[in-house]
């Protein structure tokens, strides 16, 4: 697999899929800061738990619920 096939936006990951955060897009700095404060930073392990009605994922040991736009800003390297 090429590297691009192994990277995904969190919003495009299937429930159950996990990986490591590569980066958080900074087009909205406030959002990026908030995510960082909650532990969504490069290197953190994420596992998608569900996608509907909202995206819920586990980041290390914190369970987070976000709207789709936020999930799109998180770039993950799949395991």
């Amino acid at each position, binding site marked *: 697999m090429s590297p691009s096939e192994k990277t995904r936006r969190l919003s495009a990951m299937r429930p159950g899929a996990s990986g490591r955060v590569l980066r958080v897009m900074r087009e*909205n*700095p*406030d*959002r990026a*800061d*908030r*995510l*960082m*404060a*909650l*532990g969504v*930073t*490069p*290197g*953190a392990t994420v596992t998608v*738990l*569900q996608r*509907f*009605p*909202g995206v*819920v994922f586990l980041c*290390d*040991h*914190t*369970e*987070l*619920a*976000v*709207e789709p*736009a*936020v999930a799109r800003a998180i770039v993950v390297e799949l395991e």
Partner: protein
Amino acid sequence: MSCAQAAVREPAADPLLTLRARPRRIALVGNANVGKSVLFGRLTGQYAVVSNYPGTTVALTTGRVVLGGEVCELVDTPGVTALEGALTEDELVARRILNAGQTDVVIQVSDARNLRRALMLTSQLAAIGRPMVLVLNMIDEARVHGIVIDAAGLAARLGIPVVETVATEGRGIAGLRDAIGRAAVPAFDAPHRGDHAHLAHDLAVQYRCYRRRSAARIQERLGRLVREPLTGLPILAIVLYGMYLAVGVFGAQTLVGLIEGGLFEQFINPGAIALVNRAVPWAVARDFLVGEYGLITMGLTYAIAIVLPVVATFFLVFGFLEDSGYIPRLAIFSDRIFRTMGLNGKAVLPMVLGLGCDTMATMTTRILGTPKERLIAVLLLALGIPCSAQLATILGILGGVSFFALVTLFGVVMLQMFLVGFLAARTIPGERSEFIMELPPLRLPQLGNIVRKTLLRVRWYLGEAVPLFLFGTALLFTLSRLGLLTVLTEAMEPVVAGLLGLPKDAATVFVMGFLRRDYGAAGLFQMSKAGELDGVQAVVALTVMTLFVPCVANFLMMVKEQGLKAAMGILGAVTVIALGTGVVLNAILRGLHVTF
């Protein structure tokens, strides 16, 4: 990993020998929901309201703690996720306390399961440069997850004491008291601005290791059942039904029956009347105490016998749901709907709390991200969310009419809320914030905690409500004595009797409702019990009442949160919408010859 080779080096102690003109001040700081309030209670022997979501510790709690023979002041600050960058109001409050110069020692409380997040905050606190202690709380839960932290190694590296605790069981508290005396300014090199994440990550990897995890399975499975729509929505329905059984049936019918029908009508009121008649020679004073609008026969009866049981049972149920970690999960389901109303899923917290008391809920709107969201939430609370006393009246009256009547009322109210929210989202300037929410772990709540919390809230409610009930009754008494009640009632008659099609006595009820919404609701209850309302009238009156002007306490809270101008604006808008809706609803129901 260095978990095994724990280098034990005492961090440099920072002796505080100066004589103090004021007590040493210690601040508890940390993410929301890490156990600060419980720890506060353990250290001071006092109790701060423990909650599963931010915004509840809004008013700062301070207490005294004796350390090594010295009395110190302990401050519990609101939960924070960060102290740099874009900050929420709670975070600004916390930072102001830290920077204020009166804080001598900072105790950072953290959830041991989230070491990385904790260290990110530690790194930011280090930049402030005060002596500090790092508490790794919830060690019990961390164990369950197989997490082991090398506290001694971390302490050596950071240059501050690191203490492990289980606040709920009181474990590690003695060690913490001890460590406060050794608090030190962090000695590691603070990273360049913004790079706290990097440092935190490195430290977490170095000082944390994972063992085989034991039984977190049930928690996980339960979390899944609650959050997935297929199982989550039926569970929500069951929870709501359970709430209705507890508050609407047990509280509003059984308890109210016992206290009002039993205690008050049989003993207290006749006793008070007999006593007053014998002891008070003036007719006016007698009337004032035990007459039609008597302080005891009306004010106290409503406050204690009708409203209190309902509010108390609601707070009990709410406390249970809150401590179990269930309420934040509702945000997942409601996020989409709230987004069309200019809010996000987080708004479900004040809305659910509003079902207990809108005044309290209005106060908690400050957990929302932007001024626009806070304004919309305050407006919607005032307009459409019935408090527990009103809910009880609605269920009590309309439950006796028909299920269809109930559906009509809630349908109309929800439609109005949605419409108003939809329009407000598009007309009020500003932005909504994005939905990013932490879900606390599901836990079995501790009974003692729930009971204490309920008692605290009931006390808050009594202190705030009973005086208003009595004030309202006194005002009513004065108005009626001066003949103004008739004037006011007659002035409102064209609207009430003509457009809304209600008996003209309902005008009195609306006047009372202005003083206190649930008070008015209770008045309607009496009218319906006396058979003065038919089905359509009951639905129209209750719809208007539900949408109507918030109670005085709620209005004052609106002024406090949003300023006088915004509060007046909301008051005006809500009044117009409530009356307008009532008029239209009445016309439609009469036009269609609905009888319920």
